[in-house]
């Protein structure tokens, strides 16, 4: 049976590197996904992901378990992303290609999905990436944490140091902007 994060953290704090590396394996994809969706650049997201684990490793002794280990990692990642955006002085860039490569698509196609559906999905994905990149940072972060990482409103509020109602407002505003932009671009399936 796999160890819990808390068990692995405790063993890592005792100097067990293998345990920490198990945490890395467990969390590297979500952390990378968070960084990628926040800053929109593959290579930089990779660097942020790596730096997150390095910082976590260095600060592990000070982690007292007040929050979940994953929330702690997310917070480190978001801080690093914020630094990156500030340093680069620019909006996140969505690396969506202009065209749709059918060969690439074919490799992603699931057996039950037609090529038309696949092309439509890819177009929506690119449009979402573009529109998300244009959102204000706090709205984008709230949407990413809620939609893609399944955090509760309270966890997001704790992580972003803001009231619960602010989180909900940011979410509502962000989703509303997305809805309008996607409608304008003529993509999306269920907009009214």
């Amino acid at each position, binding site marked *: 049976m796999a160890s819990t994060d808390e068990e692995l953290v405790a063993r890592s704090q005792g100097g067990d590197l293998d345990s920490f590396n198990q945490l890395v394996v467990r969390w590297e994809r979500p952390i990378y996904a968070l960084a990628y969706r926040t800053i929109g650049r593959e290579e930089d997201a990779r660097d942020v992901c790596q730096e997150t684990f390095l910082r976590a490793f260095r600060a592990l002794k000070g982690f007292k378990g007040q929050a979940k280990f994953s929330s702690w990692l997310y917070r480190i990642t978001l801080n690093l992303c914020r630094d990156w955006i500030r340093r680069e002085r620019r909006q996140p860039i969505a690396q969506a290609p202009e065209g749709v490569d059918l060969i690439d698509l074919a490799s992603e196609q699931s057996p039950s999905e037609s090529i038309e559906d696949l092309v439509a999905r*890819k177009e929506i994905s690119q449009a979402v990436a573009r529109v998300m990149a244009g959102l204000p940072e706090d709205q984008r972060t709230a949407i990413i944490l809620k939609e893609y990482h399944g955090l509760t409103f309270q966890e997001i509020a704790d992580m972003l140091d803001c009231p619960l109602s602010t989180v909900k407002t940011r979410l509502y505003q962000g989703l*509303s902007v997305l809805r309008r932009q996607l409608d304008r671009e003529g993509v999306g399936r269920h907009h009214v």
Partner: protein
Amino acid sequence: MCDKDRLVSYLYDDLADGERATFERHVRECDDCRRELSALRGVRADLVSWSPPQPDFGFRVVREPKVVPMPPRSWRAWWTPAAGLAAAAVLVLAAASAVARVEVHSGPDGVTVRTGWAPASATVPDGRVGEAASQTARGDVILPASSDGMDRSIIETLDRRLRALEAASREAGSVRNASLTGAGSARPADADIIRRMRELLAQSETKQQGELALRIAQVIRDVDAQRLEDLKRIQQGLRGVEASVNAEAAGHRELTNYILTSARQK
């Protein structure tokens, strides 16, 4: 004005049972909230299609190796197969040159010939070698060993000189027998000395060959030991490469499995 906080909470299924029921009653009556809820559900469905790339991670934390001060490198550390062969060649040359050093010593006990690393205490110019060799009855004579080529020529000169003395001795013996005079009584003794010198030279040659064989064997042993050490080092390097290749293959396997699993889930 409808409560947007409540709408968002309902959208994410974050309302308690009572609150949910109340909000659902409201939505049934409020067209705006109903439309908005539907549109936001559509946006959420669109958001699902945005997936990040799947890079090959492979990032792991490893313990920093302890920095151990490097001991001064011994000559063995610099030893490479090529250096070993070169050194072996030099040793063979040195051994041959040492072996070629010949010392001829004549004393009250007779004549002795020695070879080896003992330094020459005196040298005789090449042109006087034959003369020096003929002085055996009067004192010590040490043949020069200034260079390998000269040593060889000295030995050849000595050999020629000995043959000439032998021939002269035979000739003198026959003349003595014919004239029946007693003046040549020392001649048989000279011939004996020459014979003994020949024997000693032969012994010396055998000894030289033995020493040379020993030195060559030693060089071969050294080269062989170094070769084994080099092989061991190469094998260690290959094991390291193999381990990293295996780790990379495992990473690829893991990524492939992940992609396949993701594809199946989709």
